[in-house]
């Protein structure tokens, strides 16, 4: 498991931190988390809002931190959201996903509705034992595989690199906004 994980290290800082957490056996994540700059962002309002009963590894530093740094960290996300690079990534995602989802949902609903309301049409033989219904059913399998392939390819070629750069930029900005609080 450890070795196979190595493949993803280049993707972001997640694996390294998790790996550190893993190898650092016996240390609870309370000890590990404060070294992680992103935990402070989350402590400023993301994910652990009451700090009670939650795992909240970074609660002590977060509580000690004045609200101003948190507010600056919030501005970072607005700034990134308005940046052209992010708009481009979001546009690429949406331009692929919206037509994609519409297409396969329409195709699936049409298939189910046709199978339940027009069995006569679906029973029309095509070749040998194969009829329209059989082709449509296997077509659903085929299109599911094709959509999966297309999505993975689109994400890999059109989004991954830009998203990774944005991730680093955002985290750099957030680090600056936090003002070395960690």
């Amino acid at each position, binding site marked *: 498991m450890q070795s196979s*994980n190595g493949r993803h290290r280049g993707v972001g800082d997640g694996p390294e931190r998790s790996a550190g957490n893993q190898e650092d056996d016996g240390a609870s994540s309370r000890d590990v988390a404060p070294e992680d700059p992103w935990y402070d962002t989350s402590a400023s309002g993301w994910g652990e809002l009451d700090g009670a009963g939650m795992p909240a590894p970074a609660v002590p530093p977060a509580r000690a931190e004045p609200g101003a740094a948190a507010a600056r960290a919030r501005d970072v996300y607005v700034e990134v959201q308005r940046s052209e690079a992010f708009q481009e990534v979001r546009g690429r995602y949406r331009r692929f996903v919206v037509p994609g989802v519409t297409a396969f949902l329409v195709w699936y609903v049409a298939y189910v509705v046709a*199978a339940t309301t027009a069995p006569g049409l679906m029973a029309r033989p095509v070749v040998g034992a194969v009829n329209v219904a059989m082709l449509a059913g296997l077509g659903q399998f085929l299109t599911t595989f094709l959509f999966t392939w297309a*999505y993975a390819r689109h994400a890999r070629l059109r989004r991954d690199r830009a998203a990774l750069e944005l991730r680093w930029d955002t985290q750099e900005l957030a680090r600056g906004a936090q003002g070395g609080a960690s």
Partner: protein
Amino acid sequence: MTGDHQTPALLLFSGFVAVTLAITTWVSRRRHGSAEEFYAGGRLFSPMENGFAIAGDYMSAASFLGISGLIALYGYDGLLYGVGFLVAWLVVLFLVAELVRNCGRFTLADVVAARMSERPVRIAAGTSSVTVSVLYLVAQMVGAGSLVALLLGRTSGAAQAWTVIGVGALMVIYVSLGGMRATTWIQIVKAVLLLSGTVVLTVLVLLRFHGDVDRLLLTAAERSGHGRAFLAPGLKYGGDWNARLDFISLGLALVLGTAGLPHILARFYTVPTARAARRSAVWSIGLIGSFYLMTIVLGFGAAAVVGPGAVRGSNAAGNTAVPLLALDLGGGAGSTGGTVLFAVVAAVAFATILAVVAGITLASSASVAHDLYASLRRRRGKHRSEVAVARCAAVGIGVVAIGLGLLARDLNVAFLVGLAFAVAASANLPVLLYSLFWRGFTTRGAVWAVYGGLLPAIGLVLLSPVVSGSPESLFPGVDFQYFPLENPGIVSIPLGFLAGWLGTVTSDEVPDEAKYAETEVRSLTGAGAV
């Protein structure tokens, strides 16, 4: 099922239980009790491992035995049912997997609560997640009881009851001691076993017909007694308009519900990055798709080799079609090959149930501890305590599931799986999608979206023919049936979306632009993801 198949089947059962317990012990030997470790297995699984685990989490005994049984009895309509389970994964892949991995930590509520006033949202999302899990869990437990009793030829009530108790005890042990890491490995082992078993049987079926699928289909159609109608839709879901509408409703629930199942969402937190989450979804689609394709061959194979008459004679719902097929392919009852194959199929079905219930128990214990307990009891802020609560919650959920499983033992609970998907699609999916994609979504909208899907879904089922008003319903003696469909999805899913929209437009709360920016940036880039 006669007595001579039982010994090898029991041996294999015990073998699987021993292996899984060994995994649990091995994994928990150096646990350090962090939430990351318990809920997400340290987030260190590779996409391939997670893909297998997702497949192991998703392919229930209902798919393995149920769908192939449906095909054996009703032909094409069984296939129609199976398609929804696969297409649903496109919704997960396109809209949910990466974004949820980037935004959340352990549960669905994490994603929603990040933008909203936390407490009400967490309570709502936690409640619906637990509801979905318990419905699904009870269906699996009851299924396990009747299935094992059936496979072992012990149809007595005591054997069923002990199976339910045994399965419940095992899942509690896996989850409370081993957490996500043990659960994941059990699911991987199960997925490998299930897929290998299916591949072997499929190859044997195809060999029997010399690779001629056409002949397989024609033989199945001929033996079914329905002729060509067996290969076309309509035998099961083609009754009156209620039955047809009911199937459309079920189809919608299947396709939209998978993306809202808590135990499926939880699996995406076990990989380090969104990219790994995407790749695990791609793996799982490949595995699940091939599995359902093989299930179709097995179903038609059972119809052609065993014949629907014999299948129906063994179990009216068709659940024994694949075991009977295995017996026949191995050389028939009494032969060594038949006995071994039968035992393998029985053990695989048992492994399937155990892996699925463990995944659901873990996800619901996370909802209880991470969402409900953390919101309702605010004083204890200690880090360790949440995992301790989650372990206790797993025991509690196990007890509840055993209790309900015993109570519902003799009832026909097949509708519960469809209902769990319908609740997931009506209560969990709208709130999740609105949170991720709608700038103006507010706290009230989120709470309304959850309850606006959950309450109609449950309410409509209570008023439906599965509860009262017909001879097959849970309470045949009374009649308060006002809603004609068994599956509420076609009404409750739009209601969930509508309620979320209505709650948002009627609330005074000004949506927090900065929080939405944070959600959007994080979901698409992975910045700040844990």
